[in-house]
């Protein structure tokens, strides 16, 4: 079902109108399409055929003719021979693939270009018994003389004949006149060429077989488009071979002039001359079918508006009458389109030859294939039909013809035949089916006034129609001749779709005004009718592929009877086709299986690896140990380089460092957010990796808070806590929210919060569950001084409970006031670490304050002098007014030495601010080898300070 279909129907209809004149050509150049696909035989050692020119009987005018013949020989032993005949308009080249395949199966293969085709001489006589058929007999004679050909009797080779369309008819006719043929495969061919070109669907008697058609004596309307097409394809053949003996005889191309003249006449008049009819009758298997004794496989296509199923049916009837073994195979291909089961049909053909020709099976034994095989059309276009078999052809050889009545809802109607036969309905457009289009073309088929629709009742139960439905009605016309074309449509919902692009043409000679009863055979095919289906038999007065009378007339249809449907319930073959797994499904399944196995394998490997995480019991008492951490980002930047520090219980550790020092990277590694290249992080003795359970003992605020904006502050904390999977009682929501001091804002969505509110909520979230280790990255961001002051004792007292707090901050004064310990990082390394008190206050360091505006040179000289003094280890110019002196002597001695060195000391202190320590260690770390240039040093420090503050 496609709802889109009607939308594009208009498009397709337009394009099909455009291609209609050329469309019939699609099927014609390859009449052997149905059996042209070679079996999937390995083309390992290709045998080159022996090419020879075989003289055959002369043309009617006495011109000598020789055929272009190829023989695929066998190297050793005696082998059966297969005559491989090509289709109309082709040549021996068009059967090369089949010849190779048959050769592989052990046959000597003879292929030839028929008279008037390819490089052979002569003209086309359309399978004249005196010419084309006689030529084939000559080739049998030729085969009998070959040393590699098996003989039944002297001059009688073990021989099969195979071909499609033109070649198929040749096979049947050859078998009819030459007893030497031991097996025939004949595809999409005719029984009576006159009936094929002047088809008549009006019946004398009801059919006794599935697709049987016993037409009335009046010839049907002329199948103009196909005839022209035949004609043109022969003309093309003439153009292709310059070596043609036939002269450039007018528009006849390589056709025999008599035949040509009769065809042209028919085309001009649109009616059949008795002469032409007699000729076409003679050039058909029909007259000699009764004499065929060679077992015959008949392959006929549903998609064939040239030689319908009725032609194969007639051939089968003749074979059944003479008791010759036969099998019938209906394909969904034909002259209008390719079969969806070409491979199976080719294989069945080869098996037929193998059985009866190569293996000389008894004619009384079982057939190598089902007696009747047909395809049930797929529900959707483009899908292969479902092959189904019956043990006998319905109506023949003991097979019953089962029928079912389908009553009509509309029993009468009227239509006109337009003057000049134009416009003509478009139904049997051969190209349309080949394009895989199964859309409603009803608008261009049922031209208003020129058609009448006879709808059936919905069918009660699902039915498969196999063959030609039959119906009766009464025709009244105001002219002596009535032409009608019947087609079968399916009515579903609001749309009407063509079941098959086939028509059943009817041409009646009637007395004007007098009702004439008529019985017609609708197009033979396999139809699937689900329960509730309604059919519409559309009767049109014109059809574009036929020669339409130019005389206008009015036609009345009355008393239309129920349809008689030939039905069958066969056995479907091939589990692969009917719902099983095909290649595509198997490939997809295999891929899926591989992927799932991969996933399972990966999961197992990781599970095992996770179990082997080493724990460090010796570190179990230490909340945080960072050892040798290294992280290099993908851009090559080494953000953290061998960083080691630890935070003990009860400590408030400050992590300090300028921008890019690697603080945040370290923090993220501590939390398992990014992986380290080397080193380890242990929290309470357990190694931290992504998602380690021990992280549950850590509360963190990293690079600012992150909340779901649509939830309130309280909901956010609850959502976070829900994600940990721990019990609500352990969270202490109220107490944590008390830290945040949000007041009534806790029940407002977070998106309305200020930065400070979010920051406080973030700290509160970190404190949820009272973690043993609290890691706060820049906790004072966005807080005002009172809030900072309020936070300070909280953190201090938090640590006093035996828990640990790690703070990274740029607010150096803040760190100094809050932290007990400090770790200073710079450029990815730890420069110094220790107690804050130790860093800011040490015995060996003395701060010397100087007045402003001291002369640079004097200062430098004094500093050098002081450095030279005994016991002074280092003199650093902190700022132009402040010196840091490190010495192993007492502070009084240091002051004395400074005064002695000529420094104008105005103040002395023991304690530095953390900021100074920080800047000092950073400057010494960033320029370890450079000499101390007091002026520059001061400037760069100020610059550094500015950078730090700017953060």
């Amino acid at each position, binding site marked *: 079902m496609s709802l889109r279909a009607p939308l594009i129907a208009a498009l397709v209809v337009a394009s099909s109108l455009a291609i209609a004149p050329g469309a019939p050509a699609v099927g014609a150049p390859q009449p052997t399409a149905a059996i042209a696909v070679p079996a999937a035989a390995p083309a390992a050692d290709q045998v080159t055929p022996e090419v020879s020119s075989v003289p055959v009987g002369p043309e009617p005018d006495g011109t000598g003719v020789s055929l272009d013949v190829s023989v695929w020989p066998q190297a050793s032993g005696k082998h059966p021979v297969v005559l491989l005949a090509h289709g109309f308009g082709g040549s021996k080249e068009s059967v090369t693939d089949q010849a190779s395949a048959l050769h592989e199966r052990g046959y000597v293969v003879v292929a030839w270009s028929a008279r008037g085709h390819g490089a052979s001489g002569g003209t086309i006589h359309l399978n004249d018994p005196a010419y084309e058929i006689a030529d084939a007999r000559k080739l049998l004679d030729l085969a009998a003389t070959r040393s590699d050909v098996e003989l039944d009797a002297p001059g009688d080779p073990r021989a099969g004949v195979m071909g499609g369309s033109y070649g198929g008819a040749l096979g049947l006719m050859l078998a009819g006149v030459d007893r030497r043929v031991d097996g025939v495969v004949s595809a999409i061919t005719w029984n009576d060429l006159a009936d094929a070109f002047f088809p008549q669907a009006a019946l004398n008697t009801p059919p006794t077989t599935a697709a049987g058609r016993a037409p009335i004596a009046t010839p049907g309307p002329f199948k103009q488009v196909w005839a022209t097409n035949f004609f043109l394809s022969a003309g093309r053949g003439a153009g292709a071979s310059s070596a043609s003996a036939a002269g450039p005889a007018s528009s006849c191309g390589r056709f025999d002039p008599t035949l040509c003249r009769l065809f042209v006449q028919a085309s001009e008049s649109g009616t059949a001359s008795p002469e032409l009819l007699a000729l076409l009758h003679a050039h058909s298997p029909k007259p000699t079918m009764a004499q065929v004794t060679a077992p015959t496989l008949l392959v006929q296509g549903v998609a064939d508006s040239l030689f319908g199923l009725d032609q194969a049916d007639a051939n089968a009837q003749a074979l059944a009458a003479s008791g010759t073994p036969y099998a019938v195979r209906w394909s969904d291909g034909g002259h209008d389109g390719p079969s969806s089961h070409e491979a199976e049909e080719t294989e069945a053909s080869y098996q037929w030859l193998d059985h009866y020709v190569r293996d000389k099976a008894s004619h009384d034994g079982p057939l190598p294939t089902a007696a009747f095989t047909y395809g049930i059309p797929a529900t959707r276009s483009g899908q292969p039909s479902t092959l189904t078999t019956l043990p006998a052809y319905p109506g023949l050889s003991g097979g019953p013809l089962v029928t079912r009545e389908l009553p009509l809802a509309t029993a009468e109607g009227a239509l006109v035949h337009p003057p000049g036969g134009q416009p003509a309905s478009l139904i049997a457009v051969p190209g349309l089916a080949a394009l895989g289009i199964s859309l409603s073309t009803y608008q261009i088929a049922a031209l208003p006034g020129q058609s009448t629709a006879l709808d059936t009742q919905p069918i009660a139960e699902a039915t498969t129609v196999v063959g030609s439905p039959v119906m009766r009605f009464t025709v009244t016309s105001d002219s002596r001749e009535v032409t009608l074309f019947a087609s079968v449509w399916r009515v579903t919902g609001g749309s009407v779709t063509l079941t098959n692009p086939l028509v059943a043409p009817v041409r009646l000679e009637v007395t004007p005004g007098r009702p004439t009863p008529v019985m017609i055979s609708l197009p033979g095919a396999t139809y699937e009718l689900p329960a509730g289906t309604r059919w519409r038999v559309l009767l049109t007065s014109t059809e574009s592929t036929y020669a339409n009378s130019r005389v206008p007339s009015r036609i009345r249809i009355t008393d239309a009877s129920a349809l008689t449907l030939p039905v069958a319930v066969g056995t479907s073959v091939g589990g692969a086709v009917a719902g099983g797994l095909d290649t595509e499904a198997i490939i997809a399944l295999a891929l899926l299986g591989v992927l799932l196995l991969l996933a399972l394998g990966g999961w197992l490997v990781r599970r095992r690896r996770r179990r082997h995480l080493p724990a460090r019991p010796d570190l179990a008492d230490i909340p945080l140990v960072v050892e040798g951490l290294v992280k290099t980002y993908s851009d090559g930047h080494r953000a953290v380089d061998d960083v080691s520090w630890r935070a003990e219980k009860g400590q408030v550790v400050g992590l300090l460092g300028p921008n890019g020092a690697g603080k945040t990277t370290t923090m993220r590694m501590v939390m398992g957010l990014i992986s380290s290249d080397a080193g380890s992080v242990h929290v309470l003795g357990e190694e931290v990796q992504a998602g380690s359970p021990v992280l549950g003992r850590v509360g963190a605020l990293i690079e600012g808070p992150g909340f779901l904006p649509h939830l309130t502050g309280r909901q956010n904390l609850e959502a976070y806590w829900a994600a*940990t999977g721990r019990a609500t009682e352990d969270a202490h929501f109220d107490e944590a929210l008390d830290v945040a001091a949000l007041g009534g804002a806790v029940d407002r969505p977070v998106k309305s919060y200020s930065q400070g509110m979010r920051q406080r909520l973030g700290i509160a979230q970190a404190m949820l569950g009272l973690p*043993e280790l609290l890691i706060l990255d820049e906790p004072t961001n966005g807080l005002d001084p009172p809030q900072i002051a309020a936070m300070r004792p909280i953190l201090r007292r938090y640590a006093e409970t035996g828990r640990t707090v790690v703070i990274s901050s740029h607010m150096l004064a803040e760190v100094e006031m809050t932290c007990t310990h400090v770790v200073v990082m710079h450029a990815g390394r730890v420069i110094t670490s220790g107690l804050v008190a130790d860093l800011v206050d040490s015995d060996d360091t003395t701060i010397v304050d100087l007045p402003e505006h001291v002369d640079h040179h004097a200062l430098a000289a004094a500093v050098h002098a002081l450095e030279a003094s005994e016991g002074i280890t280092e003199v650093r110019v902190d700022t132009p007014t402040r010196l840091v002196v490190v010495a192993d002597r007492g502070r009084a001695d240091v002051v004395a030495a400074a005064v002695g060195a000529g420094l104008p000391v105005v103040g002395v202190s023991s304690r530095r601010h953390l900021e100074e320590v920080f800047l000092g260690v950073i400057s010494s770390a960033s320029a370890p080898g450079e000499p101390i240039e007091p002026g520059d040093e001061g400037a760069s420090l100020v610059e550094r300070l500015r950078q730090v503050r700017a953060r």
Partner: protein
Amino acid sequence: MSETPRPAPTDAGAQPPGEALLEVMEPAGAAPTQAITRVRSPLSWRAEVRRQWGRRRTTWAFGLLLALPLVLVGSFFFGERSSNSNRGGATSRIFDLAQSGAANFSLVLVFLASELLLVLLAALFCGDAVPSEASWASLRYLLVAPVQRARLLTSKLVVGVGSTLLATVLLPAWGLLVGGIFYGWDPLTNPLGENLTWGQFLPRLALAMGYIFITLLPIAAIAFWLGTRSDAPLAAVGGAVLVSILLNILDQLDALDPYRNAFPGHYSRAWQDALAVTPDYSDMLHGALWSLVWAVAFTMLAYRRFRRSDILS
């Protein structure tokens, strides 16, 4: 400590903030490593549903889904009033059929929505889950909660796919209800096939929706994978939709036959087969298998990527 009554939050103003917290704190040193007890697994599905449920995108997505049938009814109502003349075209036939009963209405709805709306919703629900957390900066807090990387993905994926399933089920069910109320409870009139009774139609519709759901999985998985690569929700959702459009374009190229059969989306319309009178399930089988292949492949890529990636958001 636990005996002392906790100060009520209203009293908090009387004392400095944090005092309440410090009061409930017990010295940690006493019991060094009390085991952390979990009552549920980290980021349980329920927790994830709560995270996603109140979001505006979820509300909008489902709101749109629920509004679509009503908009359709409204437009039919307008159409009836404004064009009394018989337009006759094929399009009007679809619309006429939509109004012939609940079954047809819901089917038309599914037809209209399956091509883009459901694809978009699948990409949204699955593609947005991870990057939205990243963009709110809450992803890192989830991971240090701690939620294992794989566990986080699983919860996000389950809820995302679950939301997609809910949308896929809700659409025809709501369509049936709305269609039934406005156009009566007639069984399916097939525009090209034959009519189905309710007994035939409902299981087939369920099958078709199940199939549509499976064909949505590749896009969902692609969106999910892109979501683990990007911190921008739009990049993940838009990227997946873009991929789906691109594949649709490539699918039009006959030169790619038969390889295009493997494209996700090649068999996206095969669900219509389930509603034929004689259903042909071969295309649906192919489509479902290929969809699962792609869905599993991209889900694996997503896990692989997220397990190893550094969270820098």
